[in-house]
């Protein structure tokens, strides 16, 4: 019935209707920029090595789903519970043999299954890209899709929890969007601050998805997504047990939130991660990784750079991010006390690397310079240069102007026709069975 409810809801069809043009716009814009960078139209081409389909096409195209899942899809998910509350079906279902968790699981499955229809627009974009000779690398594509799947799970959990707590769909939508705005604010406020706040901000939906978009699969992020989604759904289950007094539900709900927070905090400490990007942007060369893995002593990096200093961003995105994935025992400390670093004195700009009891200061954020110092401190011979094949890059000058009609006309028309056809089919089916019964 959940599937039927989705197909009967205008919210779902409007979501479908909007997703096609949204994804299409993202794809066409990205493909056009990619073609320009590849030298289409007689312009100068960028270096081939800089043309990555992950950055140039996949991330922007599927970014449309992030927008849709954040701002449109919650209304579809909320409706599954809010409508039951409004029309009384929830009171009947509460008395059915199906438990609340089972019913929520069915809703989740139905939402996932029917959302696959919305993903057809993304698939279409991939087919167009591949058909025009565009390069796709399966592991980085699968990793990106996994990130969006986890994002979808979390959005579903939050929407269901909001719908369970609130009496109406409008209130639930406000709660859901407030959650999203809250995570955006956290992401913005905590950026570069270091400490626990930045660690939490690194697990917000936007920041979490960014990791997958960068071609990396971090166990900490994936587990945090799963823990938050499961926590939100458990919270919804607690609140839907209407026979339990509100005060007791509030206590149980708080316990679920606390358990979820503990699980997320635990997840944030997980170190394993994998780099699925074809250009290995999140990794040192294989030779460097092998050399670094021989360092068994604890490594401490003390960074005296303020959060708004671009060198800190370079360092985090480059050397430190890669070191975290390779070194078994790495501690990064932030020594700067102000946000901008304008009025800091006494060693500002210094980055100290300590391996065992040996320390050295390096101001550079360049990978080769830092690694050379770490090898020296760790008494590990640096590997010979070269080895890994260079990323070739994948220019594509193809234009996709014809696809405009697919996303802007054919997709909405197909969605509208499917809506009318399904409604007509239902009526016909029950008309026939009614005739048979009478």
């Amino acid at each position, binding site marked *: *019935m959940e599937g*039927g*409810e989705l197909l*009967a*809801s205008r919210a779902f069809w409007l979501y479908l209707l909007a997703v096609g043009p949204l994804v299409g716009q993202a794809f066409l814009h990205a493909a056009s920029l990619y073609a320009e960078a590849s030298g289409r139209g007689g312009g100068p081409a960028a270096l081939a090595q800089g043309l990555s389909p992950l950055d140039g096409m996949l991330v922007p195209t599927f970014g449309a789903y992030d927008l849709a899942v954040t701002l449109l899809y919650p209304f579809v998910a909320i409706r599954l519970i809010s409508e*039951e509350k409004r*029309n*009384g*079906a929830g*009171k*009947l*279902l*509460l*008395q*059915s*043999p*199906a438990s609340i968790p089972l019913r929520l699981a069915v809703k989740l499955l139905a939402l996932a299954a029917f959302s696959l229809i919305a993903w057809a627009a993304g698939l279409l974009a991939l087919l167009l890209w591949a058909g025009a000779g565009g390069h796709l690398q399966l592991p980085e594509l699968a990793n990106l899709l996994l990130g969006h799947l986890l994002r979808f799970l979390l959005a579903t959990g939050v929407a269901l929890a909001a719908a369970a707590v609130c009496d109406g769909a409008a209130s639930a939508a406000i709660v859901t969007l407030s959650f999203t705005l809250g995570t955006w604010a956290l992401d913005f406020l905590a950026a570069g601050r270091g400490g626990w706040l930045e660690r939490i901000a690194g697990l917000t939906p936007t920041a979490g998805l960014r990791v997958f978009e960068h071609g990396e699969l971090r166990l900490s992020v994936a587990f945090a997504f799963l823990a938050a989604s499961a926590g939100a759904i458990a919270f919804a289950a607690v609140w839907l*047990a*209407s*026979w*339990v*007094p*509100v005060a007791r539900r509030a206590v149980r709900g708080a316990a679920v939130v606390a358990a979820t927070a503990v699980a997320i905090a635990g997840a944030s400490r997980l170190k394993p991660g994998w780099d699925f990007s074809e250009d290995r942007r999140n990794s040192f060369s294989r030779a460097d990784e092998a050399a670094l893995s021989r360092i068994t002593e604890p490594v401490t990096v003390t960074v005296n750079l303020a959060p708004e200093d671009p060198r800190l961003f370079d360092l985090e995105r480059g050397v430190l991010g890669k070191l975290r994935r390779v070194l078994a025992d790495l501690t990064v400390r932030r020594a700067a006390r102000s946000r901008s670093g304008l009025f800091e004195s006494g060693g500002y700009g210094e980055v100290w690397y300590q391996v065992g009891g040996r320390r050295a200061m390096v101001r550079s954020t360049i990978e080769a310079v830092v690694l050379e110092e770490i090898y020296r401190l760790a008494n590990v011979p640096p590997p010979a240069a070269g080895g890994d094949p260079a990323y070739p890059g994948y220019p594509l000058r193809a234009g996709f102007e014809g696809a405009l009609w697919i996303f802007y006309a054919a997709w909405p028309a197909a969605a509208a026709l499917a809506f009318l056809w399904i409604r007509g089919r*239902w*009526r*016909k*089916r*029950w*008309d026939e*069975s*009614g005739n048979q*019964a*009478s």
Partner: protein
Amino acid sequence: MLGLIGPNGAGKTTLFECLAGELPADAGEVLWQGRPLAAGHRKETLFYLPDQITPWAGQPVGRVLSFFSRLFGADPSRLSALAGTLGLSRFLSENVGELSKGERRRVLLALGLSVPREILLFDEPFDGLDLRQAREVEGVLRRAAAQGRTLFLSIHQLTDAARVCDRLVLLSAGRVAGEGTLSELRNRAGLEAGGLEEVFLALT
């Protein structure tokens, strides 16, 4: 058949929702065959059909009936017979939300009666039905009671209640003002004759 009688705001629906375990009760317990029934387990024994609901408004009646029978493990042949008796066959393809009040009421009664539970709590089962339909539904309810099921009906129309129910509970401002057959209630009210209306006014 037990009738729960009371004016609007007397607490009939609240009582039903507490009995069905959908709302927490401040005090008291529900006993079934001498044993307490915990709120979370009441759905195994009783089924409550609320008033003023339009469940699955966007779905055809036939689909709702079919889903409901599968969900509650109802006997499909019983549901089919009920649909025939209540005259639902004509609008199986109509969406629940598009039905008239009386048609919707009959769909809800079919759903409620199809659920294999020993006790059925129906909130205002005659609301929205015309006289003929009310008489037909009364017959259906009597047959269900004759099959050994207990029907607890909340009714605000006293004439309907007096005609349909074997025993009555009079509820006023959340308190039980009387309980028994109509003649027992008459005796208690000190009235030798008179209908349920007079008895109700005398006891509340």
